[in-house]
């Protein structure tokens, strides 16, 4: 089983990202679970969400305490939140940033989103990066299909493109 934790800000769609990832994994024929960590948070406040992906039915029901992968939608969060908390030894950290971060995968999702969608909607692009960084723990096909289902029409199309582009543009900075 793979456990993923998303960090984002209220309004950035971290929960949606976790859900779309779960849907995509399901399309890949896997079992999946996704949920947010809810609170009174409003737009802009730090939020978290989680996805579990597994070949077997998922029986546990608890927060993700030791993620295999952490996805950070907003690099500025790293100043206020310990995004590495509990990350497994050898786990994957993916960050939306234009810069390199030691030991982490970096992707400039904001730039990609601006280029492709025309708005700084980064949650979907980060899923593309996840596809790359996780060595295809979820397929691009399923991701794009899932996103188009969630957002029918043009928005889905554009987001789907952002996913593909981000997958390509994601790179790891070895420590």
């Amino acid at each position, binding site marked *: 089983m793979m456990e993923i934790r998303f960090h984002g*800000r209220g309004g950035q769609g971290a929960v949606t990202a976790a859900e779309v990832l779960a849907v995509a994994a399901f399309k890949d024929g896997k079992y999946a679970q996704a949920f947010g960590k809810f609170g009174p948070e409003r*737009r*802009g406040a730090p939020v978290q969400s989680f996805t579990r992906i597994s070949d077997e039915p998922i029986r546990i029901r608890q927060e993700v305490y030791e993620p295999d992968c952490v996805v950070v939608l*907003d*690099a*500025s*969060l790293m100043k*206020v939140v310990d995004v590495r908390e509990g990350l497994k030894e050898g786990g994957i950290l993916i960050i939306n940033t234009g810069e390199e971060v030691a030991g982490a995968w970096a992707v400039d999702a904001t730039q990609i989103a601006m280029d492709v969608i025309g708005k*700084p909607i980064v949650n979907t692009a980060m899923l593309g990066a996840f596809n790359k960084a996780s060595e295809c723990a979820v397929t691009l096909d399923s991701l794009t299909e899932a996103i188009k289902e969630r957002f029918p029409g043009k928005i889905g199309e554009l987001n789907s493109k952002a996913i593909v582009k981000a997958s390509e543009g994601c790179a790891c900075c070895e420590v």
Partner: protein
Amino acid sequence: MVGGVVTKVGSLDSNKTGSWRSFRPVIDREKCIGCGLCKKFCPDVCIEIKDKKAEVDYDYCKGCLICKSVCPVQAISSEEEEK
């Protein structure tokens, strides 16, 4: 406290909401006429008028840019926040 009473009033200022900001309002002290309109409308109570000039407390400013939109002399501009 018994019954969940909170006696440290105003203590929520421990919550530094400035980190939420995506855009940063920047005040041009030259242009600012100290009219206080921005302060009047700021939802985050984070503008002071000091020496007849507006000052933003970036610890709390969430970057809504209402201040920018109401400033009568366009003394406020916005910058994307460093990530």
